[in-house]
């Protein structure tokens, strides 16, 4: 079971990232739980300086930009296979 967190106060960029992550997980047919983290204290616990941030199983894979679908797919497969 994967836990995917999107860090960000909820601006357009966070929503875009959320959509990309969901699409990637759906393409891979992964069973993932999506959590939206908008509390700043919680965001800072991941040492993220700029939002949006993407956290897969408590590991920050990307921050401060919107990754492509291909990138997210790569991260998800890397984590589920290893």
């Amino acid at each position, binding site marked *: 079971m994967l836990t995917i967190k999107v860090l960000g106060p909820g601006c357009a960029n966070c929503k875009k990232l959320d959509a990309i992550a969901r699409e990637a997980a759906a393409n891979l047919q992964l069973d993932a739980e999506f959590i939206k983290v908008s509390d700043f204290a919680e965001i800072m616990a991941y040492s993220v*300086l700029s*939002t949006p941030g993407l956290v897969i199983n408590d590991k920050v*894979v990307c921050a401060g930009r919107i990754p492509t679908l291909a990138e997210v797919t790569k991260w998800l497969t890397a984590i589920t296979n290893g």
Partner: protein
Amino acid sequence: MTSDHFKKESAGNASSLPIKYFLLAPLGVAAWWLLYRQLDPFSRLLTFDLIGLAPGSHLGDALQFFLYDTPKVLMLLTLVVFGVGIIRSFFTPERTRKILAGRRESVGNVLAAHLGIVTPFCSCSAVPLFIGFVTAGVPLGVTFSFLIAAPMVNEIAVILLFGLLGWKVAALYMATGLVIAIVAGWVIGRLGMEMYIEDWVREIRMSADTPEEISLSWPDRVRMGAEAVRDIVGKVWPYVVGGIAVGAGIHGYVPEGFLAGIMGKDAWWSVPVAVAIGIPLYSNAAGIVPVVHALIEKGAALGTVLAFMMSVIALSLPEMVILRKVLKLRLIAVFAAVVGLGIITVGYLFNLLI
């Protein structure tokens, strides 16, 4: 792992810059330039010959202004956003923080203001960025220099000023914007206001491990530039068109010198009033510059109008509301007062000198 990535990046980039970019870049710029040169004659042809409006008529002037300025500004914007997008791929907030952490104040303020221009920054990241900087040992005043410069001296503002008002005004805006960010940050640092940061922020202990640096290739950077164009130009074009439409209306219909009385040099009170009006107004540079252009044409003084523009962009109520989460009211008030005073000073200075 991280040092490995750094090595790979520095070794990989120089060699991986494909030759095709050296060939394509000048070709692209040349094509852009040829097209750009045609905009003025084309807008005249369209307005006066094809549509048949008389040169010098209100509607003819307004329409030609609109048909010339809109594609011109959008073309300038596309080119610059693309270039800046590539430059920004070399800077991350993490890297900027590393540069600024532990800096002495004066040097730190200068560096922070300049890094504010090139570090990618979205206003919704103001809070995490503030916390990340302060907890990593970047002095409070240096952090403020960054936070003031980042929105104020941005590529959109500078390129629009360049396109509509010429390089001198653009350079003046950029230089004074930087000076305000440096001085205001330094003053806030001198005032020793660390205790007015919200308590919960000071209790945060950030873990030292930042996300791994991702090594980027040149195709990645070019892609990031193209994405910046799609993202930023896609977002601001309605403001540009709207702003130019308002500007065109003023250009065609408001009589020459109409604003000299209320926004001219002799109206000493107009600078602080312009700054005060600018605070609750929130617009990005794309919408405000075309209006500024038209106001100057009709007799408004440059200093007054630039002060208005800086106030709209740099002192925004929504940003203060966001910062209230990490700063106590007193520090926000000091921030607004110091920056506001800086802007007013710049406004008077321009009105005196020019």
